[in-house]
Every structure is written in structure tokens, then in C-alpha cells.
């Protein structure tokens, strides 16, 4: 028993290690900013931001999370790009990639970067599809000078659900709507399970209806589905398939299965003429 525990403790420290060689964890912003400031003489714009030097020391990045913590689901963050020698960097090309190092995958949804001026960039649509260890890889390019920094978040949790109990009702602000607009209001998506209410441990099918913002059916979208259990950090036990019915904006998802009771989040991503957008539905599986 003791040996096993030891293995786990060791694993725990090894896992986040790959992305966080500098030993900078999101959990200890103060310690690390002081340390960096001594080196790079950058004045932080925000007190509670996380900072990070890029790999080749070209830039110092300041990451601000308005909601304080990244959470499972859709996040918005702000990034201020400083020269490593001081001074803000405007008109840079920024790309941000969420990554799960232990799983070796990212997400299909691409964060949207907008420059706000004065070296400030806002990054929307940072979708973290599950709980667990995430990284944000930030690439900065300007005048052919490119450099990258990785921010590490060892424990991304589901919003306000850290101590949720089995069968406890999810937080009150969670809605179980079966019809919703996508995150960027590009599409409206409605789902229903075919053949009655959803039952645990049964493979079943869903019907989706997708319309654009004006209510016109979208028939030729590429639709993908991801199911996740926020409290457990795992997904569906199946790989569902989506088919277009080629009329009325209807799609059929076969192979849905929920193997645990409780709160599930099913994220539907739509890629069509209106762009790439996604929507997350909450479900309470009994």
C-alpha cells in the first residue's frame, strides 16, 4: 500500500513537470513574478496576473484571467506582451493553444485573439473541454521574431463544483436548456434524445437541429460532439457519429452513452459558412 502511494505521489509531481520546467505554477503567481521582475525589469500592469518569459527571452508575457481561475468550459483571458527589456509590444501576431499534456491533445475550438492596443490582447473562446491539467501555449511573432511561452494550470476545475457530491444538484445557475445559441451567437442548436428520456448505460441517438442566427436551417455543417463529466475529468465511453439528414437543419448523432450518473456537459461544435462555433449543454443523467 505504502509503495503504491509513493508511486502516486511521484507521478503527481512528474506529470505537470513536462510543461513547467521553470517550476512556475499558476498557483504561485507572487513568488514567481518577484523573481522574474528582478531579472527582466518589466512593470506589471496587473497585480494578480501571471507572468512568464518566452523560451528565447524575447518577450515577457503577462496573463490576466478576469475570472481568477481557468475553468472547464469557455474562458476569456487577456495577455499583455512586454519586451523582455521593458516596454509593450503592439501589433504582434499572437496565437494561443490550449493543450492537455497528460492526454496529448488539445481542443478543436480555436481561441480568438484581438489586439486592444498598448500591447494588450484579449483572447476569447479558450475552450477547455475537461477538467484536469491544462497548458496554454502562447506564440508571439513580430518582425520575423517568434517566441513561445507555456502557462501551466495543473488543476483546471469545473466551475464552482470542486466539492460536488454525487446526485447533489449542480449549481443553481446551471441550466439544462436543450436549445441554446452557440458561444459566439453564430448558430442556434437544439437537441433531443430519440426514443424517450436518456437512460444511463444505454447506447442511444440524438437528433440535432441547427439554424443560423436568422433562424435559417444549416444543412451542410460539420458537426462534432464531445461529452464530458466535469466532476470526474473523463468523457463518454463511446465515440458517437454525426450524420446530416440534409434537410431542415437536422442531424442525427448515433452512439451516445453515459456510463455514470450526475452532471454531464455535451459540447456540440458546428463548422459551416457562419464560421466555427460551439455550444455546451448541461445534462443530469440519472
Amino acid at each position, binding site marked *: 500500500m505504502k509503495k503504491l502511494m509513493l508511486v502516486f505521489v511521484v507521478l503527481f509531481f512528474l506529470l505537470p513537470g513536462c510543461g513547467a520546467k521553470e517550476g512556475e505554477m499558476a498557483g504561485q503567481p507572487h513568488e514567481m513574478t518577484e523573481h522574474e521582475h528582478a531579472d527582466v525589469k518589466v512593470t506589471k500592469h496587473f497585480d494578480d496576473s501571471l507572468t512568464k518569459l518566452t523560451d528565447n527571452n524575447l518577450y515577457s508575457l503577462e496573463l490576466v484571467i478576469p475570472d481568477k481561475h481557468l475553468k472547464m468550459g469557455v474562458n476569456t483571458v487577456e495577455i499583455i506582451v512586454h519586451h523582455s527589456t521593458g516596454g509593450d509590444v503592439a501589433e504582434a501576431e499572437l496565437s494561443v493553444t490550449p493543450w492537455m499534456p497528460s492526454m496529448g491533445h488539445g481542443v478543436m475550438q480555436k481561441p480568438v485573439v484581438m489586439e486592444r492596443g498598448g500591447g494588450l490582447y484579449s483572447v476569447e473562446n479558450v475552450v477547455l473541454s475537461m477538467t484536469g491539467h491544462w497548458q496554454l501555449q502562447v506564440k508571439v511573432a513580430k518582425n520575423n521574431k517568434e517566441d513561445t511561452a507555456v502557462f501551466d494550470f495543473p488543476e483546471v476545475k469545473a466551475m464552482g463544483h470542486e466539492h460536488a457530491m454525487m446526485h447533489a444538484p449542480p449549481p443553481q445557475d446551471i441550466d439544462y436548456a436543450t436549445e441554446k445559441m452557440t458561444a459566439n451567437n453564430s448558430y442556434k442548436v437544439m437537441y433531443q434524445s430519440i426514443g424517450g428520456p436518456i437512460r444511463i448505460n444505454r447506447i442511444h441517438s440524438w437528433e440535432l437541429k441547427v439554424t443560423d442566427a436568422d433562424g435559417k436551417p444549416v444543412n451542410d455543417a460539420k458537426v462534432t460532439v464531445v461529452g464530458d463529466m466535469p466532476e470526474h475529468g473523463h468523457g*463518454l465511453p*463511446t465515440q458517437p*457519429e454525426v450524420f446530416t439528414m440534409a434537410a431542415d437543419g437536422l442531424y442525427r448523432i448515433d*452512439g451516445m452513452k453515459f456510463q*455514470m450518473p450526475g452532471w454531464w456537459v455535451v459540447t456540440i461544435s458546428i463548422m459551416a459558412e457562419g464560421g466555427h462555433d460551439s455550444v455546451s449543454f448541461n445534462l443530469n443523467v440519472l
Partner: protein
Amino acid sequence: MQNCFNRFIGATIGLLFLLIGIPSQDCAWAMDQHTWTSQEKVVLRSLWLGSLGPLPVDPSNKYSDNARAAALGRKLFFEDKFSGNQKVSCATCHREDYFFTDNLPLSHGMATTPRRSMPLIGVAYNSWFFWDGRTDSLWSQALGPIENKLEHGISRTMSAYIISKYYREEYKEIFGELPDFMEDAFPQHARPAHDDPDALKAWVLMTPEQRADVNRVYVNMGKAIAAFVRTILPQPSPFDHYVEQILSEESMTNRMALTDDEARGLRLFIGKAKCTNCHNGPMFTNSDFHNLGLQAKNDKKKDTGRADAITQVLSSEFNCFGKYSDANPDECLELRFIETSEEKYVGAFKTPTLRSVTERPPYMHAGQFATIREVLEFYRSKASNPELGHDKLTDEELGLLEAFLHSLSSPVTSLQEEVRNR
């Protein structure tokens, strides 16, 4: 309410007025253990044996509900001839007197295997078979151990020969004609083996027609065994009687089927301890695979569990899509939608049923724990894992959970000998 009232009256009359205070207090407390919210009742009903429903149809086995096939399957299940030493049958590791599993940490057929024998109670309700789910039907599962060197240690040609020699008439009645498989025409030890070059060579040297003949009999043998194993079912346990009492609400006039401690354990089981994350439904399993971070003792080449089984079941000639399956491909739902990301399932093993669990130690996929208490202690030690989080349980609470698990014990029924002639 009535129950309380009765107890109250009984206590007052029986023990005079002196004790009025005590029974009423006792009652309030006892009431509390047996009062469930409507949401909790939904969960209790979902775990109740009455929610199990009829045996699921196995579209890949058209004989699965054939009584004669089941009767033949029962004989084959107990047949020692299907083994390299004439001493090993399915029942060696799936003992009828031990809830169709055995009492060893690692099962022993011809030699010691790397895993524990799976309990067969209600096994037909599973989506996948074996600890790692490397087959998608009960009949293909039944064929695996026969050709495994550590288990029965024979071949499909030998199996076909034994069927043709000892079970010929019964076989013919169900499945039709079969060749003799005599030694001069058919090799006795031929199989498409990766671990036995001689048997593989013998198999390859057979004609395609011979291989098809052998496979057909071998598959039918699996289908007959599956028809029997499907009949291994749990009877209602004290827990099931308790749920009936709670749901019917006539409960309060009767003695409750669970003691107060067992009911408290049940409350933990579906609540704080979160056991129903995985042990859900009337068979107390979600039939899915989970990595508990638990390796077998002395396991040098780490058992990767489900991860390696994914390609095995997809490539198996005996899967639901294969030519020996009776299913229309549309009916092979589990295989069609199988999650193929191996990394998700490294070291993951199937959630076993908890029916009669306290009657059949040891526990886990390699018998790592000798007692239920050790299992509960183990889960408590994993409290920080989001998937295994069972919250902070006290010693007393572990005791209550253990008490509750005892209430899942019940006799197991299976098709008996006499049904054979039906």
C-alpha cells in the same frame, strides 16, 4: 410513521411508562435512517433488481435463448475433457458453489493466470467481457480460455473432436450435421495461435474447408456455453426487499429488510462515498473500464488492461461484425461506437458487479485484497483522485458501507440439470 407508532405503543406497554423517552428517541433516529427523498428513491429504484429487465438480446448469438443449447452449454461448462490435463473445466475457476468465481487471487487452470476469475452473476447484462473487455459477446468470451495455455490449454480442433465424439447427438439436434474430426483427417492440436508455432503450422496446413468446419463447431460450442451462462442470475437480496418496502411505503408497518447500520451504509453508498459513480444500475456496474492505479503483485510486464483489448476485440474473428456472428452489423452497437483512444484506458479494468460481493473474496482484477475492508480502505486512500474520490470517510463509515455490502448477498440461480429435457 405507523411503524414508529407501533414501536412506541409496544414499548410503552411492554416496558411501562418508565421508558417512554427512550423508544421515542430511538424511533426518531430509526425513522431517519429509513426516510429517503424522492430523488434518493429514484436512485434506489435504479439499483433494485426489479429494474433489471429481461435478459438483453444477444443479436450475435441466435441460440442464446434456446433451452436445448443452454442445457448442452451447461454440460460443456462442467466438462473436464476440454483441457490439456482432462481436469479443467469452466467450472474450475467459475465454481457453482462460489458464486461462479473462485477463491484465488489469481485463477489457476493448467497454470496460474495473470488475473482473477470474473464473477459470472448476471454477466449477460455486460457490454464487454473479460476484465479488459477483449470480447464483445458471451460466446466469444467462452472460447477464449479454451485455447489459452494457462487455462484449458487445448485447441479448437480438439474441442471439435470432443464435441463430435461425446456430444454428437445433442449438437446435431441444435446446430445440424457435423464431421467426425477424426485424428487421421484433422490434427488434434491446431489453432491460429501466436504463442504456439506447432499448433499454428498445423492450422495453416489444414484446408480452408476443414478450418471452416472446425470454426463452425467451435463457435457453436461457445454459443451453447453462452446460452447456459446467461441463466446465471442473482436472486433478490435483502437490499432489494428493502427497496420494495421503501417504494411501496407499506414499509413502516413491517420490520425493515435492512438494519439501521445497513441503511446508513446504503445512504453513504449512493451519497457521500459516491460508489454509484461506477457501481450503478441493478447489477451494480456500469460495465465500463477504469484505472484504479492498482497493479497486480509481482506484475513485471505491466498489465495494460483495456488499452490492449481494444485492438483485440476489433480484430477478433469472433466479434459481432465477424462471419460467425448472427448479428446484422447495425446491431453491433458497442463495437461500432467503441472508444478507440488507448491512452484513456491504460491499466483500466471493468467494474465488476457487487451482487453477493462479500461472499466471494478475494477482490480486484488480480485478487489484490483479501477482504472487503481492505478494498474500502484502498478507495479511501484514493480520495484525491477526481474519478475515485470517495470523500473523507471515517472508520465508522467504512464499517457502515461494509454492512450495507453484506445486504447485497443472495443465492444465485442457473439453469439446472433437469431442464435439459424440456
